[in-house]
């Protein structure tokens, strides 16, 4: 039993933290987020060189990590720096490419790892909420290829992407898990329109419309109609990443709040000496440990059989959603008025923690999923 990261993971995390703190400060990132691509492409390249992307993928595929603990180590470091950028997008797309395999996919994966390509994962739709199997975008087979039509919603870094992995229905009803396929679509494809915007959490996303977008037959990734498993797997990796990101941010918020309680004085004494605040801070500390444990459980179950893996993932995302909201709201309240201000770095962590619940499924979605998976088991 060993709950510690490996030396490699620790070193990478330290390197990333240092790079972000010294070379890529929050202020600069906030400024850049206002327009596409939303981040410093130079810093992106440097982060890739440091290994932030390679660590997300298997050595067989050109990476040097790829385990759930590797993913967690990278994203915890990113979360503690509140770093925005297409990390999650790269993980999701990269995971899909890794699952389907083949020459084209592997080449793209290597481009992602090198920081040369940004591939967005265009799966979620305006009406799908967090359901993985609900896809209304269609792909009709035609001469020599496919024609895609539909709308994709809140696609992470959709306005920074060179290409998209687009899920589309090739058969079945809108909520069938079967019948969903993945396609590679270049950002410049005729009929594709992209509306980018910054999110409340400082990361960019985009609405992506596909109006009769034509792609060649070779742009189908994997088996037609069989993408659900690939999507679920990628989403699982994404959930680990978001939970780790959340744990990283929680630790920072904890430290900021503890420091504030220690140093801020009111009625002539540090506010941390007020017992009512102490007891609430104790809850914050306890729940952050629970969140960390939930992430650990998800990492531990990642390599196991589907039901226990997915249940642990849903339990983790549920826990992180619950704890992140609790801690974010308490941090603001314990800071008082100053906690409400944009200028304070805390606010960026708080918004990120709150928005965590709106990415890849919220607490209700994952609690219901946890129950349903348990019933099916």
């Amino acid at each position: 039993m060993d709950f510690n990261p490996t030396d490699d993971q620790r070193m990478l995390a330290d390197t990333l933290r240092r790079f972000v703190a010294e070379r890529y400060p929050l202020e600069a990132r906030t400024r850049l987020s206002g327009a596409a691509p939303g981040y410093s492409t130079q810093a992106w390249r440097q982060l890739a060189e440091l290994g932030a992307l390679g660590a997300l993928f298997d050595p067989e595929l050109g990476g040097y990590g790829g385990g759930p603990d590797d993913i967690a180590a990278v994203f915890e470091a990113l979360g503690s720096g509140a770093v925005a950028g297409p990390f999650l997008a790269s993980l999701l797309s990269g995971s899909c490419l890794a699952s389907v395999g083949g020459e084209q996919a592997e080449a793209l994966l290597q481009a992602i790892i090198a920081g040369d390509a940004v591939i967005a994962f265009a799966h979620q739709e305006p009406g799908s909420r967090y359901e993985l199997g609900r896809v209304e975008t269609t792909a009709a087979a035609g001469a020599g290829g496919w024609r895609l039509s539909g709308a994709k919603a809140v696609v992470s870094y959709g306005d920074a992407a060179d290409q998209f992995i687009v899920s589309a229905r090739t058969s079945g009803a809108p909520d069938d898990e079967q019948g969903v396929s993945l396609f590679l679509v270049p950002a410049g494809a005729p009929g594709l329109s992209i509306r980018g915007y910054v999110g409340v959490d400082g990361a960019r996303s985009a609405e992506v419309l596909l109006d009769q977008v034509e792609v060649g037959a070779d742009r189908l990734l994997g088996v037609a109609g069989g993408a659900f498993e690939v999507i679920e797997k990628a989403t699982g990796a994404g959930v680990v990443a978001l939970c780790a990101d959340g744990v990283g941010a929680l630790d920072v918020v904890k430290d900021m709040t503890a420091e504030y309680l220690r140093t801020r004085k009111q009625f002539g004494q540090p506010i941390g000496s007020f017992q009512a605040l102490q007891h609430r801070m104790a809850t914050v500390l306890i729940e952050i440990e629970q969140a960390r444990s939930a992430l650990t459980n998800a990492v531990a179950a990642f390599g196991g059989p589907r039901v226990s893996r997915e249940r642990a993932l849903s339990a983790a995302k549920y826990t992180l959603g619950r704890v992140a909201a609790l801690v974010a709201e308490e941090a603001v309240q314990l800071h008082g008025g100053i906690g409400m201000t944009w200028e304070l770095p805390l606010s960026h962590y708080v918004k990120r923690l709150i928005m965590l619940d709106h990415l890849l499924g919220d607490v209700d979605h994952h609690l219901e999923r946890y129950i349903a998976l348990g019933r099916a088991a």
Partner: protein
Amino acid sequence: MDLTFSAEDEALRQEVRKFLAETLPPDLAQRVRLGKHLSKGETEAWQAALSARGWLAPHWPKEHGGQGWSVTQRYIWDYEKSLAHAPPTVAFGLNMLAPVLIKFGTEAQKAYWLPRMLNGDDWWCQGYSEPGAGSDLAAVKTTAVRDGDEYVINGQKTWTSLGQHANMIFCLVRTANTGKRQEGISFVLVDMDQPGVEVRPIITLDGDHEVNEVFFTDARAPVANLIGEENQGWTYAKYLLTYERTSMAMVGASVAALGLLKDVARTETKGGRPLAEDPFFAARIARAEIELENLKTTTLRVVAAAAAGGAPGAESSMLKVKGTEVHQEIRSLTRRALGPYALPYQPESLAPGSNAEPVGPDYAPGVTPAYLNSRKLTIYGGSNEVQRNIITKAILKL
């Protein structure tokens, strides 16, 4: 026990509804409902419409241009306005300064300032909080030094809501340093259109510019602008803080917010069906609705006690705590209801007069900002922690 309003009060309610239906432009109400920001002009125009009807300050005595409404009538008025998504009136002059003026001001002060409020000649803001003082209002450091028939004011105020629009500010200033901290504070009206007053924006969590810092550098106010006696300002400030506390339950605002939440939940889908039919989410809404129905009655009980001459003490603190918590919960649920579309940050859609096409449904842009903004409710107006101290100390009498 009789929970119906009197025939007279019900008649007023009907009159209010008729007035709102006739006077409140539907597109303005819709903008308020969706959390869009109003321009200074829009707020002023709405206040002028109320003033024309004599209802800009109906809680004032008739002799000062009000209607002398009872606490019950004021409750109905506030409630109906919120329900109709009427723009809020700017409370600092009408609801905060005016009662102090009426109780402690000179005849000259009343005769000058009150009609100007009704005419919309002044936009008032409040200079109470100071940096680092938080809930400790008596920690006033801004000084006012007598120089002939003027005060010379130096210092800084913060969390000044809508200060960017204001031309007048009422301030707590320190005029003496002897005795307890609560002594030596004075209550002074200061013109903001002078070189010694600088307003700097504070951007809040939600990205909005609502509050400000106000800096005084040798700013001047005539001694005629002192309210009551020098060094007695704490008394007036406290009076202001205990005045009209049932409004802190935010019942009307929460009923309106709950209406929006239900609309969103009926429109958003989950598993192909309306989110409102999902058992988990329906339970979340139902719990909030029941709490709000209970709070409505708790508020009416305090209103009835106040109408019967009782002075609400710890009760108003209870209303503040529960009311703000219920409101935050409703705002939080609306954010949840929105799903992934809670994420896009769309300040351009909220800007006054904007017709920007929203990302996601039309109600999307305002939802997360309203949630984030609502976090202030438990901090300001006497933080909920301070209110809890008051509530328990009242019963324990320790």
